[in-house]
């Protein structure tokens, strides 16, 4: 979570070095729109600071011949109550082109925050983003089918938020047991 691993520098494992090389290409293209690289050995990642650039970055990551991140393994919503933020974490990798993997974080404010949707870039993001919305309540701009997916359509609240209070009744059925 913090950047304590950054000074690890040249003793980075090979997999992290690959991610770093991929990150450098993105950084070169987008400059201050992306944060510094976090050489976390279990999951190297960077953050998209300028969220309005997220779709461009995603397209660049998917299509640039040096990157070719064509496979989005996972997209998870996360709650950051201390920073008053919500976010998503995308685990990306390249099938059939390169061996590198990287994670990307995108954050938005907690109340009424929104993140541009990348479901046009990776189809798999469609359902994952719906799930993140369902569980955390951030909206995804430009999502083609922005609905809840796992909870019922008329459920109140977002269950995975840290401050979630379950509703007392749902259609006359007592909820908390």
């Amino acid at each position, binding site marked *: *979570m913090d950047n304590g691993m950054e000074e690890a520098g040249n003793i980075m494992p090979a997999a992290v070095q690959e991610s770093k090389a991929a990150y450098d290409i993105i950084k070169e293209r987008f400059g201050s729109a992306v944060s510094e690289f976090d050489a976390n050995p279990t999951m190297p990642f960077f953050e998209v600071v300028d969220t309005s650039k997220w779709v461009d970055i995603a397209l660049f990551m998917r299509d640039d011949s040096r990157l070719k991140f064509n496979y989005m*393994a*996972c997209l998870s919503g996360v709650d950051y109550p201390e920073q008053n933020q919500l976010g998503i974490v995308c685990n990306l990798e390249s099938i059939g082109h390169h061996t590198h993997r990287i994670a990307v974080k995108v954050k938005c404010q907690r109340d009424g925050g929104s993140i541009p949707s990348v479901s046009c870039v*990776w*189809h798999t993001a469609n359902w994952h983003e719906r799930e993140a919305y369902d569980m955390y309540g951030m909206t995804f701009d430009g999502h083609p089918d922005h609905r809840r*997916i796992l909870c*019922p359509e008329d459920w109140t609240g977002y*269950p*995975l938020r840290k401050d979630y209070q379950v509703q007392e009744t749902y259609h006359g059925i007592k909820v908390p047991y």
Partner: protein
Amino acid sequence: MQELGKAELNSTRIIRQNDNRVVIEKDLDTEYMVLSMGPQHPSTHGVLRLECITDGEVVVEAEPYLGYLHRCFEKYCEKVDYPGIVPYTDRMDYLAGMNTELAYCIAVEKLLDVEIPRRVEFIRVIVSELNRIASHLVAIGTYGIDLGAFTPFLFCFRDREHILNLLEWISGARMLYNYIWIGGLSYDVPADFKKRVAEFVTYFRPKALELQKLLTENEIFVKRTKGVGIMPAEVAINYAWSGPMLRGSGVKWDLRRNDPYSVYPELDFEVPVPDGRFSDIGDSLSRHLVRAWEMDESLKIIEQCLDKMPEVEGFNSRSAIPKKIRPKAGEVYGRAENPRGEVGFYIVSDGKSTKPLRCKARSSCFVNLSAMKDLSKGQLIPDLVAIIGSIDIVLGEVDR
């Protein structure tokens, strides 16, 4: 070209073209009908509802509705400690509990930096490969039922019972094992385990062949599946398909090879992909074939593990399990190859608590199913059944 049917007043013609695509002739004016398939329907493999907009016998659009089995696994994870999550992972993919447990334990172990005893690693691989065979047997058997072949189902379940007996013997449970623990196993295997697994392997080899004869070489089965629901490799990757689904589209991608874990790098096995001889690459039959071939590979893996597994006198399978499981602060995405594809766990630890801050399960079926809308466009309703069956969904894992 083959004409399949005519609607009233002969204004519509449904044609199956040479490349197997079904085409409706233009300027027709039929009424669309909404057909709700499920949540209780024998061919949706659980409580999945498909809202199909149909034009006669052709599906214009099929929208899946899920969540009927949603238990908010991820919320539970924030309430119980790390070892306590293992039983919940069983209940995600209840046909492949061992594999899901393994994926979860791998993820946590990456944060913990524990050294796993070699014997434990081999036992883990054996049980998860056994479970893979059991799971594929259900997939193949129920797929047969979907397409009207009842006998293979009985054969599959008879053989699966042998595996469940073995797994029950070592863990005490038939399906929800809680056997693979973080850093070890709940128990070492019983004394005769190797012998009985070896017996099973010799027993099952000819049975797998028999199954191939019953289904894969069955003319009716092939007619129903070949060329149905074709998914090109590029689109499959974009949909993040994994496992037999992705390999069915001809992409040689297997986490046991491409992101190796446990002792898989030491083992010799093939990653089978269809070559277009028996099926059109990417169709339902390809996905079925990959599952059938994978069972053979799993048998190979099990045999090698039985050979290589070290015998340790007075072995304690819990020796490497930390007293208190409190991973260092950080985040990890750990994953493993499930029978249905990639199961991954994204875990965030704050370094202080014995509970994860966040534990997201990336479910293979959830992702595989998300392509349903694209796959079903323009298919006939009976073909829709063939497509759902080939995706091999377990709703417990889709809804979590």
